């Protein structure tokens, strides 16, 4: 009959503090994504800067151009008046391009660190270390948030510098508000991806679920603006609460609400990930 080794034996080593693992994972995650501010931030920032640079030359004709748009189209894309560089950047970049691109980036980031790592076999090595899966998921969520912030900062810098150089009259604070507003929206889809990763093992499926939710909720918001019958359903779309911070200022309550939903989704995903098999 054998006797179990007591955990309190002299040789017992206690698990390191959770903070050690969290900090190490965040540091490693940032290192893994160190090129993202350049690639994602650089490309989206260049496009936004280009729009800003074009503004002085189209400023006079923009109002006429908008007048020629169908009312439904203007409603769908939130273009009421194109009378400022902020409104122009909003219509061209912040209403569709940047939220969808960075929403997809956030999904990709969350998938890569969890179910993607599982698919590549990395978790067999990583989860032999003294860290909980909740810590792994939490660190992945934090990395996604930090990298998104760095990307948004690059976009802001490129756009504001360009606007200043060409004399577009871009407000630094309005632009910052517009870009900060993107963060909770995109983090929410990182939360959706994390939740899906807590249930599904295949990275392609998790990406499809989260990216599908991104596209579907965007379409729901646009369709709700156009069709009165489905207008009440817009409340289900995060894009309904995203608004247009570059033109109307940051709605802190919406930012907080979207961030809370993102955190709740990620926390639920972490809990499910903790309990499921790693294949």
């Amino acid at each position, binding site marked *: 009959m054998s006797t179990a080794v007591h955990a309190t034996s002299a*040789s017992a080593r206690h698990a390191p503090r959770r903070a050690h693992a969290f900090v190490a994972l965040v540091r490693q995650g940032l290192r*893994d994504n160190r090129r993202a501010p350049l690639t994602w931030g650089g490309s989206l920032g260049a496009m936004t800067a280009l729009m800003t640079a074009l503004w002085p030359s189209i400023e006079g004709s923009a109002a006429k151009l908008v007048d020629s748009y169908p009312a439904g189209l203007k409603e769908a894309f939130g273009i009421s008046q194109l009378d400022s560089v902020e409104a122009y950047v909003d219509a061209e970049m912040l209403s569709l391009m940047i939220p969808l691109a960075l929403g997809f980036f956030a999904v990709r980031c969350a998938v890569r660190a969890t179910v993607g790592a599982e698919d590549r076999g990395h978790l067999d090595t990583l989860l032999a270390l003294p860290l909980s899966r909740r810590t792994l998921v939490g660190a992945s969520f934090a990395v996604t948030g930090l990298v998104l912030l760095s990307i948004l900062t690059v976009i802001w810098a490129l756009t504001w510098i360009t606007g200043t150089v060409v004399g577009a009259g871009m407000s630094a604070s309005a632009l910052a508000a517009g870009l900060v507003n993107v963060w909770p929206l995109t983090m929410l889809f990182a939360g959706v991806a994390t939740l899906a990763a807590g249930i599904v093992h295949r990275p392609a499926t998790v990406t499809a679920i989260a990216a599908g939710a991104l596209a579907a909720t965007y379409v729901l918001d646009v369709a709700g603006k156009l069709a009165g019958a489905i207008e009440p359903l817009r409340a289900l779309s995060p894009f309904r609460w995203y608004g247009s911070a570059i033109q109307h200022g940051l709605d802190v309550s919406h930012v907080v609400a979207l961030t809370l939903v993102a955190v709740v989704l990620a926390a639920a995903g972490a809990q499910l990930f903790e309990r499921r*098999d790693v294949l």
Partner: protein
Amino acid sequence: MIAAPPPPALAPPAGERHHRATTAVIETHDLCKRYGSSRGIEDVNLTVRRGEVFGFLGPNGAGKTTTIRTLLGLLRPTSGSARLLGLDSRRDSREIRARLGNLPGEFVYDDRLTGHELLRFFAGVRGMTDLGSADLLAERFEADLRRPLRELSRGNRQKIGLIQALFHEPELVVLDEPTTGLDPLMQEEFLTVVGERRERGGTVFLSSHDLDEVERICDRVGIIRAGRLIAVDEVQAMRGRAFRHVTVRFAHPVTAAALDGVAGVHDVVADDATLRFRVLGDLDAVIKELARHRVRDLEVTRPTLEELFLTFYGHGVPA
């Protein structure tokens, strides 16, 4: 090879050493893991004692990796329980992993990292700052820690895998096919390192296909087949029961009848001047019988693991 400074003991203080043979570092009770309707492992009852090197053997798909992954908490047991280092494998998983080193069957990690970067990262997660032990192991295994993993051969990546499993001086090391891809010299060094761990009271649980390696280093072995642990035995006892394939080439034709009545000889096939047969147990009587004829060549080979399982454990009961 370099002489390492005296490493710390991996077991309890000397006063507790007499428990080495009786304390359980791994203990499973009716451990069962099913994947839906598919079989994983069934009612595995296993005890690995402190300070022993335990070999876990079985053909591909037998359940070795499933057992290891269940012990490590990567898979949730369908039923049953496991305790490692006296702690519950699910509830105390993080504490267990602080005292455990693991090399998975397929060691893969972000291949953009160099060995040093990977080890620094893992040390950070473990709350360690000193990588001295990793550097010593790297010297012993002749591992290049400066190159990205993607630039390393399979064997050299495996060395990094071994270092990350051992560098924090774990009390229990779980290794799934640890010598895969290693050249013979490094296999030898690995066996030396494992022996040193045992000397310091550490426990090693390793799965392997290599019977020679298992025979050389393991104190006991467990054999798993079709998800069930069918035998646990001392290596010497198992070796004594193992048959060998024998091929003898004579200077002249010999019939199978030449070995009639020789103890332990089975399945004799004669082909002109060649006899092929299997021997169970002592070879002495066989050699003496063969010596009656002029022998040109004699070849004795051990059975593959699978043959061994089929012969001795074909009905799920040790011979």
